[in-house]
């Protein structure tokens, strides 16, 4: 039994990468993850990744912001300390709209980005879990779990045939830990 944990296929071009993923899938090799220096459009469908629900999250937070604003202003200006301003109504809705809007945006933006950081484990100081240092620069890296997929030589051949410029066998999952 070898100590290889992950097989990394390095591609220099996003189209070759897509081709490589196709080839791997044709041969029933499961892809663990793909690390790229830029977003690759259409890769989610290929890997069967579901649509992100962050849009709904943003909507929820935005609505919370709107409700927070209207309740806060109504409480302060209508219930807690009503003032007579030229005999005008205390519940001056049009005047509340600007702040309702601002808080909607504020809550939506912060709530969504906060959720994004949370679900992707992004936080200041978090140790980067990087499998290959060039994946943030110029290489498009397909990672294959070596324990789950046998016949490593065959996987190497598939990757190379599909146009991989380099194939690595890593004994450590992440190379970025100090």
């Amino acid at each position, binding site marked *: 039994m070898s100590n290889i944990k992950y097989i990394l296929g390095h591609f220099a071009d996003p189209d070759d990468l897509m081709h490589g993923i196709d080839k791997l899938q044709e041969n029933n090799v499961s892809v663990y993850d793909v690390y790229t220096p830029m977003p690759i459009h*259409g890769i989610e469908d290929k890997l069967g990744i579901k649509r992100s629900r962050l849009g709904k999250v943003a909507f929820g937070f935005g609505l919370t912001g709107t409700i927070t604003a209207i309740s806060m202003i109504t409480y302060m200006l209508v219930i807690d300390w009503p003032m007579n301003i030229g005999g005008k109504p205390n519940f001056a809705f049009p005047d509340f709209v600007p702040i309702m809007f601002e808080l909607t945006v504020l809550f939506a933006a912060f709530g969504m980005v906060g959720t994004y950081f949370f679900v992707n484990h992004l936080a200041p100081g978090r140790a*980067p879990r990087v499998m290959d240092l060039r994946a943030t620069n110029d290489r498009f890296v397909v990672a294959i779990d070596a324990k789950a997929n046998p016949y490593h030589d065959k996987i190497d051949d598939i990757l190379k045939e599909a146009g991989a410029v380099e194939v690595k066998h890593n004994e450590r999952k992440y190379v970025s830990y100090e």
Partner: protein
Amino acid sequence: MSSHHESILREPLVTGENITYSKVTEDILVPVENKPNKAWWIGFIVSAMGAGLWVFSVSWTFWFGIGEWGLNKTVGWAWDITGFVWWVGIGHAGTLISAVLLLFRQNWRNSINRSAEAMTIFAVICAASYIISHMGRPWLFHWALPLPNQYGSLWVNFNSPLVWDVFAISTYFSVSLVFWYTGLLPDIATIRDRAIGTRRRIYSILSFGWNGSVKTWQRFELVSLILAGVSTPLVLSVHTIVSMDFATSVIPGWHTTIFPPYFVAGAIFSGFAMVQTLLLVTRKVMNFENYITMFHIESMNKIIILTGSIVGVAYLTELFIAWYSGVEYEQYAFLNRVSGPYWWAYWIMMTCNVISPQLFWFKKIRTSIALSWLLSIVVNIGMWFERFVIIVTSLHRDYLPSSWVMFYPSWVDVGIFIGSIGLFFTLFLLFLRVLPAIAMAEVKLLLKSSSDQAKQKLIAEQVVDKGQADYYIESLEKYDSVSPKVAEYEKV
């Protein structure tokens, strides 16, 4: 998909030969990974001296109060609010480039959005500092927030546009910061993975542990899109609310319904001018000519003509409505602007904002780097005068002729203004040194579709129509970064 080719008729967004993904990284990280050059140091020292002046003048104001400014009983707002509106307006182009152009899928935003967003943040910092210092007792700035207090609680007045402004500016600043920083994460990770030692540790903390996996990118793109979607109305709302600081008052010259669209157009106008001022220098000093190309410069100049013309129409509409209203106070306010003691400020505004940008109709002028830079400075000056004209000339002759005065700035006013420019440039120059000034990941997206290299390859493979190819080659003539190649193709 990245392999989709775009029409050959579109001008390239990335020029240069043998551009690869790694070359993009190398080129863009030159200023970050190397010691700064002489030009940077000269700029930095001059700006830092300006920032020092800012610290001194603002401290002076905090210590002695705003009586040290040139304000008087009649003119209660002058350079402070002029400076505030000017800076906020400048900030708006950053959001516009990063958000509105993203929604419209304008790929040319990819190489200028990063520095434009940075500019937004620094401009809003300058604007906010004006707000804090004009409060008189800045240590009580939290009184503008609805916080529980021992007076009842006595709440802030939510009917006041000044309170709306507190919410608008703070939301704008914080959302822009989040938008900018989220976009920076992949690029910080690139620096991290190339660095060693302490640098690596620092960028590792800053990168939030970014790894570029499929799911990270998928969510990243959605987050960027939604942030763009909420920032677009946000940026419009911010300047609308700034304009309402004036428009909801009853001062003739301020009390007009045209203010919101007029201010927003002016903000985009001045913001693009400032982006132009900064980027034309940056691309030269940092050798970014291949990424910030003549197409970018020309596109921004086109936006400057458009928004400049909108501003011009707004000025004329204001004059017309003042006359048409039949209200003598309103009519006098505008007559006084045009021909009163501040006529020179009005006409500087008119010349710089309405007349000189029209020169960009000439292709020679809008594709000339020197002239574009010069005119962008002229626009910045003009937009400062616009705010000065709106604020000071509307106030200096009020309802009672015995209190009519002129406004003379004190050295503290001048110090804060010049100092805020110094502060802005200091922050911008530091940004250029420590963070990538161009969004590398987004430029990499363009390489296979929109680069000159990709298009030349299509022409060489003869898969495109000959007439269209000729049109494309012809469009390259204006590019300062591809001139030798055009000659080569003409030979063929």
